[in-house]
């Protein structure tokens, strides 16, 4: 469900950075901990980008794995289940170092050639 709200935020961000230029591609980095369903996000983006400079643009979603860093044994590792403990020493003293991203990374825009001479 939240894919629609997120897609709306993605469109707004892309439109802001496009400054009126036509957008062909929007790339989004999406951490696995954000529980975003890529197909739903694409679907919502397709609808919400209508009548904006993003209309017809392709949404590329980069899936970012969830990673923890242990503050005690200093290991860093990927997790595939929601268990926020160190795999090696079992401490809960860990930091999430990947997987919480939800950011518009780049947009590809079409720029009219300008004569600066």
């Amino acid at each position, binding site marked *: *469900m*939240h894919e629609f*709200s*997120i897609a709306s*935020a*993605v469109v*707004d*961000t*892309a439109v802001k*950075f*496009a400054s009126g*230029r036509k957008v*062909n591609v929007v790339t*989004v980095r999406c951490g696995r*901990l*954000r*529980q975003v369903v890529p197909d739903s996000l694409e679907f919502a983006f397709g609808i919400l980008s209508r009548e904006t400079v993003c209309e017809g643009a392709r949404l590329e979603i980069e899936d970012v794995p969830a990673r923890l860093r242990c503050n005690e044994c200093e290991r860093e590792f990927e997790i595939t*289940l*929601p*268990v*926020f*403990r160190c795999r090696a020493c079992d401490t*809960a003293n860990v930091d999430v170092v990947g997987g919480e991203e*939800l*950011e*518009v*990374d*780049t*947009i*590809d*825009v*079409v*720029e*009219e*050639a300008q004569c600066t001479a």
Partner: protein
Amino acid sequence: VHRVKVRVVEDALDANNTIARANRDDFDRHGVTVLNIMSAPGAGKTTLLERLLNPSHPPIGDLRVGVLEGDVQGSLDADRLAHLHVPVTQLETGNGFGGECHLDANMVRSALPSIPLDDIDLLIIENVGNLVCPAEFHVGEDARIMVASVAEGDDKPGKYPLMFRTCELVVVNKIDLLEHTDFSMERFDGFLDAVHPGVERMRVSARTGEGVDALRAWLARLPDRAGAPA
């Protein structure tokens, strides 16, 4: 005509977070501590509020409390709270047939003029019942509570980790139903410990009132912990 790649690197929810900070500044300026209560539909948020704010029960410290109801449809919840003698502001996210699945910072911002900020110390925001979306959207709160209920089953922290990770207190409601269900508190705590190790937790029954005093005490301490001006 040529193609250019523009580097953006901006949090997609940056706009929401900016408005949330503005809300927070306004709340701070009025010395109001804000609590965001989240849960699945039917977990008992409104019943819990009725129990917490019932004038025949002890007050929440010396705090003057206000409620912002983020109901999807109509004013059913606000009507239930109307007799509690606390200011209740209804924030409708729908048009009578259901609406948004969560509150965002802008919706709360739109409600600010209707909230008597000078007359309250604690604003309790009852979010829309949902186990995914509200976690993404900060609204300017100081703290978040997640209400889970026995009737939902003991596996919910494992299924909705984002929700259980972004709160400071997990309240397990409807413990009066424990004996009638297969809910295992040990299993629930196990999932919760995996998802959010060490998070504070309470067990209550909004229906019988069991455990609610502890929650009242937790709320009474919230302004000090949140560091809001007195």
